[in-house]
């Protein structure tokens, strides 16, 4: 692994191949396309659906604490289990799951560097068997909202200029040319970005094979975009999963302490009546 601030939160595909079935380790696949798991997955991996198991299915929110505890227990995960998350789209929703695990205080969560596509590209073993782990006992802590931003905090920060805002969407979404990623439903009323935000698309953090770029390269990307790290950083995207990925990079790979994920993101801000919006680059 490259010289990250927290190397312990990343494992390679080779590590998973060697240790994925070890006692005390649980591998979990979380995809954007929830049908991918059924195609074939890392042998022994449990599959979580982001749109039903990692959110509140009634109101808009992250998974409730009691539902999180049940998901962990049903997945055979105890408080001391090493959980290795991976998924498609360079770990978009694996990072979303990682962030929620940290909100609820799970100690040892990791991402498989390169995600599902790297595992496939390397021709590693796949399974279509759905494991039935023995239920475990799980007690969540928190929620730790020090890693999460809500609308009032973001609004106040915009007014005061006291934070560095990082918009991790594509340039076309940032400028307001499009309202959602091409090919996906439009879910906001207005296009553009939060005034003062810097556009640093999440994908800049990834190499061609899906793995994270080196710490030096990542540092240069943020530095060149004007992010100094001297102020608190709020990352946002459209619904909070891409910004979980960038939050992971900033907090764990670069070691910046005061980074939050604004999971309301553009589907909240871009639908507000009277909220300030900037258009263009």
């Amino acid at each position: 692994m490259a010289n990250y601030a927290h190397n312990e939160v990343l494992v390679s595909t080779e590590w998973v191949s060697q240790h994925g079935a070890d006692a005390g380790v649980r591998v979990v696949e979380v995809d954007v396309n929830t049908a991918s798991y059924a195609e074939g997955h890392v042998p022994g991996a449990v599959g979580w659906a982001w749109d039903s198991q990692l959110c509140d299915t009634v109101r808009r929110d992250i998974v409730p604490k009691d539902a999180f505890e049940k998901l962990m227990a049903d997945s055979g995960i105890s408080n001391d289990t090493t959980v290795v998350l991976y998924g498609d789209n360079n770990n978009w929703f694996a990072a979303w799951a990682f962030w929620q695990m940290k909100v609820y205080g799970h100690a040892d969560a990791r991402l498989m560097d390169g995600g599902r596509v790297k595992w496939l590209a390397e021709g590693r073993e796949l399974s279509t068997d759905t494991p039935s782990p023995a239920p475990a006992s799980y007690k969540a802590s928190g929620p730790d909202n020090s890693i999460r931003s809500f609308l009032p905090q973001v609004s106040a920060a915009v007014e005061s200029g006291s934070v560095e805002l990082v918009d991790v969407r594509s340039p076309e979404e940032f400028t307001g040319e499009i309202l959602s990623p091409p090919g996906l439903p439009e879910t906001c009323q207005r296009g553009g970005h939060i005034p003062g935000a810097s556009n640093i698309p999440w994908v800049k953090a990834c190499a061609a094979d899906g793995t994270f770029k080196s710490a030096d390269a990542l540092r240069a990307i943020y530095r060149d975009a004007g992010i100094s790290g001297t102020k608190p950083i709020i990352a946002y995207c459209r619904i909070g999963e891409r910004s979980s990925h960038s939050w992971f990079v900033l907090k764990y790979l670069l070691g910046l302490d005061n980074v939050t994920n604004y999971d309301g993101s553009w589907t909240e801000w871009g639908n507000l009546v009277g909220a300030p919006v900037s258009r263009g680059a």
Partner: protein
Amino acid sequence: MKAEHFTVRQFELSGWPVRITSYRIGTTWHAKADNVSPGATIATATGETHWEAVADATEKARKRLAATRRFR
């Protein structure tokens, strides 16, 4: 069981850069189209042949991309 014949191809479709990732698992070919940046999956398809899966994913992607509005 493994993913075999894993290939990635990038081209323009309805004015957008698109990436098609294809592979075979067992006897089924899989193809996924994403929009390069931001990388969101636009369409997926399966088929009995590589051509069938890729053609189906490409056609589904073309239809969805054509519906994307641009505000300039």
